[in-house]
Protein backbone atom coordinates (compact mmCIF):
# COMPACT_ATOMS: atom_id res chain seq x y z
CA UNK A 1 0.00 0.00 0.00
CA UNK A 2 2.72 2.39 1.10
CA UNK A 3 4.90 1.37 -1.78
CA UNK A 4 2.01 1.88 -4.13
CA UNK A 5 1.73 5.43 -2.92
CA UNK A 6 5.38 5.91 -3.75
CA UNK A 7 5.06 4.42 -7.17
CA UNK A 8 5.69 6.68 -10.07
CA UNK A 9 4.13 6.99 -13.43
CA UNK A 10 6.84 5.90 -15.74
CA UNK A 11 7.41 7.92 -18.82
CA UNK A 12 9.76 7.56 -21.71
CA UNK A 13 11.26 10.66 -23.20
CA UNK A 14 12.63 10.44 -26.66
CA UNK A 15 14.67 13.60 -26.50
CA UNK A 16 17.22 14.50 -23.88
CA UNK A 17 15.35 15.78 -20.87
CA UNK A 18 15.77 19.29 -19.52
CA UNK A 19 17.80 19.75 -16.38
CA UNK A 20 15.89 18.63 -13.37
CA UNK A 21 14.14 15.83 -15.14
CA UNK A 22 15.06 12.21 -15.02
CA UNK A 23 14.09 10.39 -18.14
CA UNK A 24 12.78 7.12 -16.88
CA UNK A 25 13.61 4.43 -19.35
CA UNK A 26 12.04 1.35 -17.88
CA UNK A 27 10.99 -0.21 -14.66
CA UNK A 28 8.56 -2.23 -12.73
CA UNK A 29 6.19 -0.48 -10.39
CA UNK A 30 7.92 0.53 -7.20
CA UNK A 31 7.49 -1.75 -4.28
CA UNK A 32 6.12 -4.60 -6.29
CA UNK A 33 6.18 -7.61 -4.02
CA UNK A 34 8.93 -10.04 -4.87
CA UNK A 35 7.78 -13.34 -6.23
CA UNK A 36 7.76 -16.07 -3.62
CA UNK A 37 10.75 -18.30 -3.85
CA UNK A 38 12.49 -16.06 -6.33
CA UNK A 39 15.14 -14.82 -3.92
CA UNK A 40 18.64 -16.09 -4.53
CA UNK A 41 17.68 -17.51 -7.90
CA UNK A 42 16.52 -14.27 -9.39
CA UNK A 43 16.58 -13.99 -13.14
CA UNK A 44 19.02 -11.51 -14.58
CA UNK A 45 16.96 -8.55 -15.74
CA UNK A 46 17.23 -7.13 -19.21
CA UNK A 47 19.49 -4.11 -19.04
CA UNK A 48 18.21 -0.63 -19.62
CA UNK A 49 21.76 0.68 -19.71
CA UNK A 50 23.35 1.55 -23.06
CA UNK A 51 26.55 -0.36 -22.23
CA UNK A 52 28.58 1.89 -24.49
CA UNK A 53 32.17 1.17 -25.26
CA UNK A 54 34.47 3.50 -23.35
CA UNK A 55 31.85 4.66 -20.86
CA UNK A 56 32.45 4.64 -17.10
CA UNK A 57 30.55 1.77 -15.53
CA UNK A 58 30.18 1.16 -11.83
CA UNK A 59 27.90 -0.30 -9.19
CA UNK A 60 26.62 1.26 -5.97
CA UNK A 61 25.98 -0.67 -2.76
CA UNK A 62 25.35 0.58 0.73
CA UNK A 63 25.03 -0.60 4.32
CA UNK A 64 26.21 -4.01 3.35
CA UNK A 65 28.24 -5.51 6.16
CA UNK A 66 25.81 -7.81 7.91
CA UNK A 67 27.18 -11.14 6.79
CA UNK A 68 23.56 -12.23 6.54
CA UNK A 69 21.67 -14.14 3.89
CA UNK A 70 20.30 -11.01 2.27
CA UNK A 71 23.79 -9.56 1.76
CA UNK A 72 24.86 -12.77 0.04
CA UNK A 73 21.78 -12.77 -2.18
CA UNK A 74 22.33 -9.19 -3.29
CA UNK A 75 26.05 -9.99 -3.67
CA UNK A 76 25.23 -12.81 -6.04
CA UNK A 77 22.94 -10.62 -8.12
CA UNK A 78 25.61 -7.93 -8.20
CA UNK A 79 28.13 -10.48 -9.38
CA UNK A 80 25.77 -11.93 -12.00
CA UNK A 81 25.04 -8.44 -13.32
CA UNK A 82 28.59 -8.20 -14.63
CA UNK A 83 27.72 -10.64 -17.37
CA UNK A 84 25.40 -8.14 -18.99
CA UNK A 85 26.93 -4.93 -17.64
CA UNK A 86 30.70 -5.17 -17.11
CA UNK A 87 31.09 -2.54 -14.41
CA UNK A 88 34.68 -1.70 -13.57
CA UNK A 89 34.38 -0.80 -9.90
CA UNK A 90 31.98 -0.64 -6.98
CA UNK A 91 31.41 2.29 -4.65
CA UNK A 92 30.34 1.49 -1.08
CA UNK A 93 28.18 3.85 0.93
CA UNK A 94 29.49 2.82 4.34
CA UNK A 95 28.53 0.51 7.19
CA UNK A 96 30.82 -1.92 5.49
CA UNK A 97 31.00 -4.07 8.60
CA UNK A 98 28.31 -4.15 11.26
CA UNK A 99 29.17 -5.35 14.74
CA UNK A 100 32.50 -7.11 15.14
CA UNK A 101 35.39 -5.78 13.06
CA UNK A 102 37.82 -8.66 13.52
CA UNK A 103 39.53 -10.65 10.77
CA UNK A 104 36.68 -13.17 10.49
CA UNK A 105 34.22 -10.29 10.07
CA UNK A 106 36.10 -9.00 7.04
CA UNK A 107 35.82 -12.48 5.56
CA UNK A 108 32.18 -13.08 6.39
CA UNK A 109 30.87 -9.58 5.71
CA UNK A 110 32.95 -8.56 2.71
CA UNK A 111 35.37 -11.02 1.19
CA UNK A 112 33.00 -13.98 0.85
CA UNK A 113 29.79 -12.30 -0.36
CA UNK A 114 31.71 -10.40 -3.05
CA UNK A 115 34.36 -13.04 -3.79
CA UNK A 116 33.55 -13.52 -7.48
CA UNK A 117 33.70 -9.75 -7.99
CA UNK A 118 36.96 -9.39 -6.08
CA UNK A 119 38.41 -12.38 -7.93
CA UNK A 120 37.57 -10.67 -11.20
CA UNK A 121 39.81 -7.79 -10.15
CA UNK A 122 36.97 -5.33 -9.63
CA UNK A 123 37.92 -2.62 -7.17
CA UNK A 124 35.74 -1.47 -4.30
CA UNK A 125 35.99 2.11 -3.04
CA UNK A 126 34.58 2.44 0.45
CA UNK A 127 33.46 5.27 2.64
CA UNK A 128 33.15 5.04 6.40
CA UNK A 129 29.75 4.62 8.03
CA UNK A 130 28.84 5.10 11.65
CA UNK A 131 29.18 1.37 12.26
CA UNK A 132 32.66 1.21 10.76
CA UNK A 133 35.90 1.17 12.64
CA UNK A 134 37.93 4.06 11.20
CA UNK A 135 40.87 1.65 10.92
CA UNK A 136 39.03 0.11 7.95
CA UNK A 137 40.68 2.81 5.90
CA UNK A 138 43.86 0.74 6.07
CA UNK A 139 42.14 -2.33 4.63
CA UNK A 140 43.53 -2.46 1.12
CA UNK A 141 40.48 -3.93 -0.67
CA UNK A 142 38.53 -0.82 0.38
CA UNK A 143 41.04 1.31 -1.57
CA UNK A 144 40.97 4.21 0.87
CA UNK A 145 44.76 4.34 1.08
CA UNK A 146 44.67 5.06 4.76
CA UNK A 147 42.53 8.18 4.36
CA UNK A 148 39.18 8.94 5.98
CA UNK A 149 38.27 11.15 3.05
CA UNK A 150 39.78 11.02 -0.40
CA UNK A 151 39.10 11.39 -4.09
CA UNK A 152 39.72 9.20 -7.10
CA UNK A 153 39.19 9.60 -10.77
CA UNK A 154 37.86 7.28 -13.44
CA UNK A 155 37.88 8.70 -16.95
CA UNK A 156 35.74 11.85 -16.96
CA UNK A 157 34.41 11.23 -13.48
CA UNK A 158 35.97 12.27 -10.21
CA UNK A 159 34.59 10.87 -6.98
CA UNK A 160 34.90 12.72 -3.69
CA UNK A 161 34.55 10.33 -0.82
CA UNK A 162 33.65 12.01 2.45
CA UNK A 163 33.73 10.75 6.01
CA UNK A 164 30.31 11.96 7.14
CA UNK A 165 30.69 10.24 10.51
CA UNK A 166 33.19 12.82 11.66
CA UNK A 167 33.23 16.02 9.62
CA UNK A 168 36.13 18.07 10.86
CA UNK A 169 36.80 21.61 9.66
CA UNK A 170 39.94 20.15 8.05
CA UNK A 171 37.78 17.88 5.90
CA UNK A 172 35.67 20.81 4.75
CA UNK A 173 38.84 22.76 3.95
CA UNK A 174 40.04 19.78 1.91
CA UNK A 175 36.77 19.69 -0.03
CA UNK A 176 36.95 23.44 -0.62
CA UNK A 177 40.39 22.88 -2.08
CA UNK A 178 39.87 19.80 -4.25
CA UNK A 179 36.41 20.41 -5.72
CA UNK A 180 37.26 23.61 -7.60
CA UNK A 181 40.58 22.16 -8.75
CA UNK A 182 38.96 19.16 -10.39
CA UNK A 183 38.63 19.41 -14.14
CA UNK A 184 36.54 16.25 -14.37
CA UNK A 185 33.35 16.52 -16.38
CA UNK A 186 31.43 14.78 -13.63
CA UNK A 187 32.08 15.45 -9.97
CA UNK A 188 30.37 12.90 -7.78
CA UNK A 189 30.64 13.10 -4.00
CA UNK A 190 29.49 10.21 -1.89
CA UNK A 191 29.26 9.64 1.82
CA UNK A 192 27.36 7.61 4.35
CA UNK A 193 24.82 10.14 5.62
CA UNK A 194 22.33 11.56 3.12
CA UNK A 195 21.97 15.33 2.88
CA UNK A 196 18.33 14.82 1.91
CA UNK A 197 16.23 11.87 2.95
CA UNK A 198 12.60 11.00 3.47
CA UNK A 199 13.49 8.33 5.99
CA UNK A 200 11.37 8.28 9.12
CA UNK A 201 14.20 6.75 11.12
CA UNK A 202 17.00 9.17 10.28
CA UNK A 203 15.93 11.85 7.80
CA UNK A 204 18.06 14.54 6.21
CA UNK A 205 21.49 15.34 7.61
CA UNK A 206 20.98 19.06 7.96
CA UNK A 207 24.26 19.99 9.67
CA UNK A 208 26.27 18.27 6.99
CA UNK A 209 24.11 19.79 4.30
CA UNK A 210 24.77 23.29 5.63
CA UNK A 211 28.48 22.74 5.27
CA UNK A 212 28.83 20.87 1.98
CA UNK A 213 25.82 21.64 -0.19
CA UNK A 214 26.99 25.19 -1.06
CA UNK A 215 30.28 23.67 -2.22
CA UNK A 216 28.48 21.11 -4.34
CA UNK A 217 26.32 23.78 -5.95
CA UNK A 218 29.19 26.17 -6.57
CA UNK A 219 31.39 23.51 -8.12
CA UNK A 220 29.06 21.91 -10.61
CA UNK A 221 28.25 18.69 -8.77
CA UNK A 222 25.46 16.84 -10.57
CA UNK A 223 24.92 13.71 -8.54
CA UNK A 224 25.48 12.67 -4.92
CA UNK A 225 25.22 9.16 -3.48
CA UNK A 226 24.69 8.22 0.16
CA UNK A 227 23.53 5.35 2.34
CA UNK A 228 22.60 5.12 6.04
CA UNK A 229 18.88 4.77 5.38
CA UNK A 230 18.09 1.13 4.76
CA UNK A 231 16.13 1.61 1.59
CA UNK A 232 16.51 3.10 -1.88
CA UNK A 233 15.44 6.63 -2.60
CA UNK A 234 15.92 8.95 -5.55
CA UNK A 235 15.20 12.48 -4.45
CA UNK A 236 13.71 15.15 -6.59
CA UNK A 237 16.61 17.40 -7.63
CA UNK A 238 17.56 19.73 -4.81
CA UNK A 239 19.10 22.97 -5.99
CA UNK A 240 19.84 21.27 -9.27
CA UNK A 241 21.57 18.23 -7.77
CA UNK A 242 20.34 14.65 -7.92
CA UNK A 243 20.61 12.76 -4.64
CA UNK A 244 20.44 8.99 -4.41
CA UNK A 245 20.26 6.98 -1.21
CA UNK A 246 21.28 3.36 -1.56
CA UNK A 247 21.51 1.99 1.94
CA UNK A 248 19.53 -1.14 1.39
CA UNK A 249 21.99 -3.62 -0.06
CA UNK A 250 21.86 -5.94 2.95
CA UNK A 251 19.53 -4.38 5.52
CA UNK A 252 16.00 -3.21 5.07
CA UNK A 253 13.95 -0.76 7.09
CA UNK A 254 10.67 -1.75 5.59
CA UNK A 255 8.09 0.96 5.03
CA UNK A 256 10.42 3.64 6.37
CA UNK A 257 10.09 6.17 3.55
CA UNK A 258 7.74 8.87 4.79
CA UNK A 259 4.44 8.62 2.99
CA UNK A 260 3.78 11.68 0.90
CA UNK A 261 7.30 13.08 1.23
CA UNK A 262 7.59 15.96 -1.20
CA UNK A 263 11.26 15.16 -1.72
CA UNK A 264 10.84 11.61 -2.99
CA UNK A 265 10.91 11.09 -6.71
CA UNK A 266 11.20 7.36 -6.34
CA UNK A 267 11.28 5.24 -3.22
CA UNK A 268 11.72 1.55 -2.67
CA UNK A 269 11.52 0.26 0.87
CA UNK A 270 10.09 -3.21 0.53
CA UNK A 271 13.25 -5.13 -0.33
CA UNK A 272 17.02 -4.80 -0.68
CA UNK A 273 18.60 -3.29 -3.76
CA UNK A 274 21.75 -2.10 -5.50
CA UNK A 275 22.50 0.24 -8.39
CA UNK A 276 24.28 0.01 -11.71
CA UNK A 277 25.48 3.28 -13.20
CA UNK A 278 26.95 4.20 -16.55
CA UNK A 279 28.37 7.57 -17.46
CA UNK A 280 28.76 8.20 -21.15
CA UNK A 281 29.90 11.68 -22.08
CA UNK A 282 27.26 14.07 -20.77
CA UNK A 283 24.71 11.57 -19.57
CA UNK A 284 24.46 9.35 -16.55
CA UNK A 285 22.33 6.24 -16.92
CA UNK A 286 21.25 4.35 -13.84
CA UNK A 287 19.36 1.25 -12.97
CA UNK A 288 18.31 0.09 -9.52
CA UNK A 289 17.73 -3.60 -9.03
CA UNK A 290 15.86 -5.29 -6.23
CA UNK A 291 16.87 -8.49 -4.48
CA UNK A 292 14.47 -10.43 -6.63
CA UNK A 293 16.10 -9.10 -9.76
CA UNK A 294 13.54 -6.54 -10.83
CA UNK A 295 14.57 -3.17 -12.19
CA UNK A 296 12.74 -0.94 -9.76
CA UNK A 297 14.05 2.38 -11.04
CA UNK A 298 16.07 3.56 -14.00
CA UNK A 299 16.69 6.71 -15.94
CA UNK A 300 19.09 9.19 -17.46
CA UNK A 301 20.51 12.31 -15.91
CA UNK A 302 22.08 14.97 -18.09
CA UNK A 303 25.21 16.69 -16.90
CA UNK A 304 24.82 20.25 -15.74
CA UNK A 305 27.29 22.65 -17.20
CA UNK A 306 29.08 24.63 -14.53
CA UNK A 307 28.20 27.73 -16.48
CA UNK A 308 24.47 27.06 -16.36
CA UNK A 309 23.93 29.60 -13.61
CA UNK A 310 23.60 27.39 -10.55
CA UNK A 311 23.64 30.53 -8.45
CA UNK A 312 20.37 31.61 -9.99
CA UNK A 313 18.76 28.38 -8.86
CA UNK A 314 19.99 28.84 -5.33
CA UNK A 315 18.99 32.44 -5.18
CA UNK A 316 15.48 31.65 -6.24
CA UNK A 317 15.25 29.05 -3.52
CA UNK A 318 13.62 26.65 -5.92
CA UNK A 319 14.36 23.10 -6.70
CA UNK A 320 14.66 22.55 -10.37
CA UNK A 321 11.94 19.98 -10.79
Amino acid at each position, binding site marked *: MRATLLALTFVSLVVAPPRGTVALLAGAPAGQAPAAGARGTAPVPRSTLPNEKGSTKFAVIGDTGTGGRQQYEVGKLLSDARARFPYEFVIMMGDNLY*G*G*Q*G*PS*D*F*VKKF*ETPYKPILDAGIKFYATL*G*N*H*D*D*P*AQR*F*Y*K*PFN*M*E*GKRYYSFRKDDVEFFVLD*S*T*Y*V*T*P*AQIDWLKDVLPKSNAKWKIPYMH*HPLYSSGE*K*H*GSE*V*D*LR*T*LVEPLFIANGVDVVFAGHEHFYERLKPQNGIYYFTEGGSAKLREGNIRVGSAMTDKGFDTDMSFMLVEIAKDQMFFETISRNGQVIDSGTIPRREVASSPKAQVASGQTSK
Partner: protein
Amino acid sequence: MTVYLPVSRVALVGVLVAMMCGVATAQAPPRADQGVAARQAETPNANPQATALAEFQKRLQGYIDLRAQLAGKLKPLSPTADSAQLASRQDTLAAAIRDARKGAKPGDMIPTRVAGQIRNVIADDFRRRTPEAKRAVFEEVPEGIRPVINNSMPDTAPLATVPPLLLTKLPVLPDNLQYRFMDRHVVLIDGDTRIIVDYILNVLPPH
Protein backbone atom coordinates in the same frame (compact mmCIF):
# COMPACT_ATOMS: atom_id res chain seq x y z
CA MET B 1 78.38 61.68 33.84
CA THR B 2 79.85 61.03 30.41
CA VAL B 3 80.71 57.52 31.56
CA TYR B 4 77.09 56.66 32.21
CA LEU B 5 75.64 58.02 28.97
CA PRO B 6 76.75 55.11 26.73
CA VAL B 7 75.53 52.64 29.34
CA SER B 8 72.17 54.39 29.43
CA ARG B 9 72.10 54.34 25.66
CA VAL B 10 72.92 50.64 25.65
CA ALA B 11 70.22 50.06 28.22
CA LEU B 12 67.77 52.13 26.20
CA VAL B 13 68.63 50.26 23.01
CA GLY B 14 68.24 47.01 24.94
CA VAL B 15 64.79 48.02 26.15
CA LEU B 16 63.80 49.08 22.65
CA VAL B 17 65.07 45.82 21.17
CA ALA B 18 63.25 43.88 23.84
CA MET B 19 60.05 45.81 23.11
CA MET B 20 60.46 45.23 19.40
CA CYS B 21 61.04 41.57 20.02
CA GLY B 22 57.88 41.53 22.09
CA VAL B 23 55.95 43.16 19.31
CA ALA B 24 57.51 40.82 16.79
CA THR B 25 56.50 37.82 18.89
CA ALA B 26 52.95 39.05 19.24
CA GLN B 27 52.71 39.61 15.50
CA ALA B 28 54.34 36.37 14.46
CA PRO B 29 52.05 34.09 12.49
CA PRO B 30 50.47 31.33 14.55
CA ARG B 31 52.28 28.04 14.56
CA ALA B 32 50.32 25.21 13.07
CA ASP B 33 50.07 23.34 16.35
CA GLN B 34 49.06 26.27 18.50
CA GLY B 35 47.11 29.31 17.41
CA VAL B 36 45.82 32.44 18.99
CA ALA B 37 45.11 30.92 22.37
CA ALA B 38 48.62 29.60 22.69
CA ARG B 39 50.20 32.88 21.66
CA GLN B 40 48.11 34.80 24.11
CA ALA B 41 49.12 32.40 26.85
CA GLU B 42 52.76 33.25 26.25
CA THR B 43 52.18 36.85 27.25
CA PRO B 44 52.19 37.85 30.91
CA ASN B 45 48.59 39.10 30.92
CA ALA B 46 47.09 36.15 29.07
CA ASN B 47 43.48 35.44 29.81
CA PRO B 48 42.91 32.24 31.75
CA GLN B 49 40.74 30.69 29.04
CA ALA B 50 43.44 31.17 26.44
CA THR B 51 45.98 29.71 28.82
CA ALA B 52 43.79 26.68 29.39
CA LEU B 53 43.26 26.20 25.66
CA ALA B 54 46.99 26.45 25.08
CA GLU B 55 47.54 23.89 27.80
CA PHE B 56 44.95 21.64 26.13
CA GLN B 57 46.76 21.91 22.80
CA LYS B 58 50.05 21.16 24.52
CA ARG B 59 48.63 18.03 26.13
CA LEU B 60 47.06 16.90 22.85
CA GLN B 61 50.38 17.35 21.13
CA GLY B 62 52.02 15.39 23.92
CA TYR B 63 49.59 12.55 23.25
CA ILE B 64 50.23 12.66 19.50
CA ASP B 65 53.99 12.63 20.10
CA LEU B 66 53.66 9.68 22.46
CA ARG B 67 51.47 7.86 19.97
CA ALA B 68 53.93 8.48 17.15
CA GLN B 69 56.77 7.29 19.33
CA LEU B 70 54.91 4.09 20.19
CA ALA B 71 53.75 3.53 16.64
CA GLY B 72 57.30 4.01 15.41
CA LYS B 73 58.38 0.93 17.34
CA LEU B 74 55.58 -1.16 15.85
CA LYS B 75 54.54 -2.20 12.39
CA PRO B 76 52.80 0.87 10.98
CA LEU B 77 49.06 1.10 10.43
CA SER B 78 49.43 1.14 6.67
CA PRO B 79 47.21 -0.31 3.97
CA THR B 80 47.14 -4.09 4.01
CA ALA B 81 44.89 -6.68 2.42
CA ASP B 82 45.40 -8.95 5.40
CA SER B 83 42.60 -8.17 7.85
CA ALA B 84 44.30 -10.28 10.53
CA GLN B 85 47.42 -8.18 10.22
CA LEU B 86 45.35 -5.00 10.36
CA ALA B 87 43.63 -6.15 13.56
CA SER B 88 46.93 -7.23 15.04
CA ARG B 89 48.60 -3.89 14.34
CA GLN B 90 45.63 -2.05 15.78
CA ASP B 91 45.60 -4.21 18.92
CA THR B 92 49.35 -3.85 19.39
CA LEU B 93 49.16 -0.07 19.11
CA ALA B 94 46.20 0.01 21.49
CA ALA B 95 48.07 -2.14 24.03
CA ALA B 96 51.13 0.10 23.80
CA ILE B 97 49.03 3.24 24.34
CA ARG B 98 47.25 1.65 27.29
CA ASP B 99 50.53 0.62 28.82
CA ALA B 100 52.12 4.02 28.34
CA ARG B 101 49.07 5.76 29.84
CA LYS B 102 48.14 3.27 32.50
CA GLY B 103 48.09 5.92 35.18
CA ALA B 104 45.97 8.36 33.16
CA LYS B 105 43.11 10.01 35.00
CA PRO B 106 40.05 11.98 33.91
CA GLY B 107 41.10 15.56 33.24
CA ASP B 108 44.68 14.67 32.38
CA MET B 109 44.04 15.65 28.80
CA ILE B 110 41.17 18.13 29.02
CA PRO B 111 41.87 20.95 31.52
CA THR B 112 38.92 21.84 33.76
CA ARG B 113 38.48 25.23 32.18
CA VAL B 114 38.40 23.75 28.67
CA ALA B 115 35.93 21.12 29.85
CA GLY B 116 33.75 23.99 31.04
CA GLN B 117 34.03 25.67 27.66
CA ILE B 118 33.08 22.43 25.90
CA ARG B 119 30.07 22.09 28.20
CA ASN B 120 28.95 25.62 27.38
CA VAL B 121 29.42 25.22 23.64
CA ILE B 122 27.44 21.98 23.62
CA ALA B 123 24.69 23.36 25.84
CA ASP B 124 24.37 26.38 23.58
CA ASP B 125 24.33 24.20 20.48
CA PHE B 126 21.59 21.95 21.80
CA ARG B 127 19.48 24.90 22.93
CA ARG B 128 19.37 25.98 19.29
CA ARG B 129 18.38 22.58 17.94
CA THR B 130 14.81 21.57 17.34
CA PRO B 131 13.47 18.56 19.25
CA GLU B 132 13.62 16.61 15.99
CA ALA B 133 17.26 17.55 15.42
CA LYS B 134 18.12 16.58 19.02
CA ARG B 135 16.43 13.26 18.56
CA ALA B 136 18.46 12.68 15.40
CA VAL B 137 21.71 13.38 17.25
CA PHE B 138 20.90 11.05 20.13
CA GLU B 139 19.44 8.32 17.99
CA GLU B 140 22.53 6.15 17.93
CA VAL B 141 24.37 7.36 21.01
CA PRO B 142 25.14 4.27 23.09
CA GLU B 143 23.30 4.44 26.39
CA GLY B 144 23.90 3.05 29.84
CA ILE B 145 27.67 3.03 29.45
CA ARG B 146 30.08 5.02 31.56
CA PRO B 147 33.40 5.90 29.98
CA VAL B 148 36.59 4.49 31.43
CA ILE B 149 39.98 5.77 30.36
CA ASN B 150 41.93 3.26 28.28
CA ASN B 151 38.81 1.21 27.59
CA SER B 152 37.74 0.97 23.96
CA MET B 153 34.50 2.25 22.54
CA PRO B 154 32.35 -0.85 22.06
CA ASP B 155 32.58 -2.09 18.49
CA THR B 156 29.07 -3.49 18.71
CA ALA B 157 27.57 0.00 18.93
CA PRO B 158 27.80 2.62 16.17
CA LEU B 159 30.06 5.61 16.57
CA ALA B 160 27.33 8.19 16.87
CA THR B 161 27.97 11.16 14.66
CA VAL B 162 28.89 14.39 16.40
CA PRO B 163 26.98 17.13 14.54
CA PRO B 164 29.34 18.73 12.02
CA LEU B 165 28.29 22.28 12.92
CA LEU B 166 29.00 21.58 16.58
CA LEU B 167 32.45 20.31 15.64
CA THR B 168 33.23 23.66 14.07
CA LYS B 169 32.70 25.31 17.48
CA LEU B 170 34.68 22.90 19.66
CA PRO B 171 38.43 23.22 20.20
CA VAL B 172 40.18 21.68 17.23
CA LEU B 173 41.76 18.27 17.74
CA PRO B 174 44.70 16.69 15.96
CA ASP B 175 43.81 14.26 13.21
CA ASN B 176 43.94 11.07 15.26
CA LEU B 177 41.73 12.28 18.09
CA GLN B 178 37.97 12.67 18.00
CA TYR B 179 35.13 13.89 20.20
CA ARG B 180 32.39 11.28 20.52
CA PHE B 181 29.23 10.90 22.56
CA MET B 182 28.62 8.10 25.01
CA ASP B 183 25.36 8.24 26.95
CA ARG B 184 25.35 11.81 28.30
CA HIS B 185 29.12 12.06 28.26
CA VAL B 186 31.64 13.49 25.84
CA VAL B 187 34.62 11.26 25.27
CA LEU B 188 37.89 12.01 23.60
CA ILE B 189 38.95 8.93 21.66
CA ASP B 190 41.91 7.82 19.64
CA GLY B 191 40.37 7.43 16.19
CA ASP B 192 42.31 4.36 15.09
CA THR B 193 42.23 2.32 18.27
CA ARG B 194 38.91 3.64 19.66
CA ILE B 195 40.62 3.98 23.05
CA ILE B 196 39.07 6.49 25.41
CA VAL B 197 41.76 9.04 26.14
CA ASP B 198 39.72 11.36 28.38
CA TYR B 199 36.11 12.28 29.02
CA ILE B 200 33.76 14.85 30.49
CA LEU B 201 30.74 13.53 32.35
CA ASN B 202 27.11 14.62 31.94
CA VAL B 203 27.60 17.15 29.21
CA LEU B 204 24.69 16.25 26.98
CA PRO B 205 21.13 17.08 27.91
CA PRO B 206 19.01 14.17 29.16
CA HIS B 207 17.63 12.16 26.29
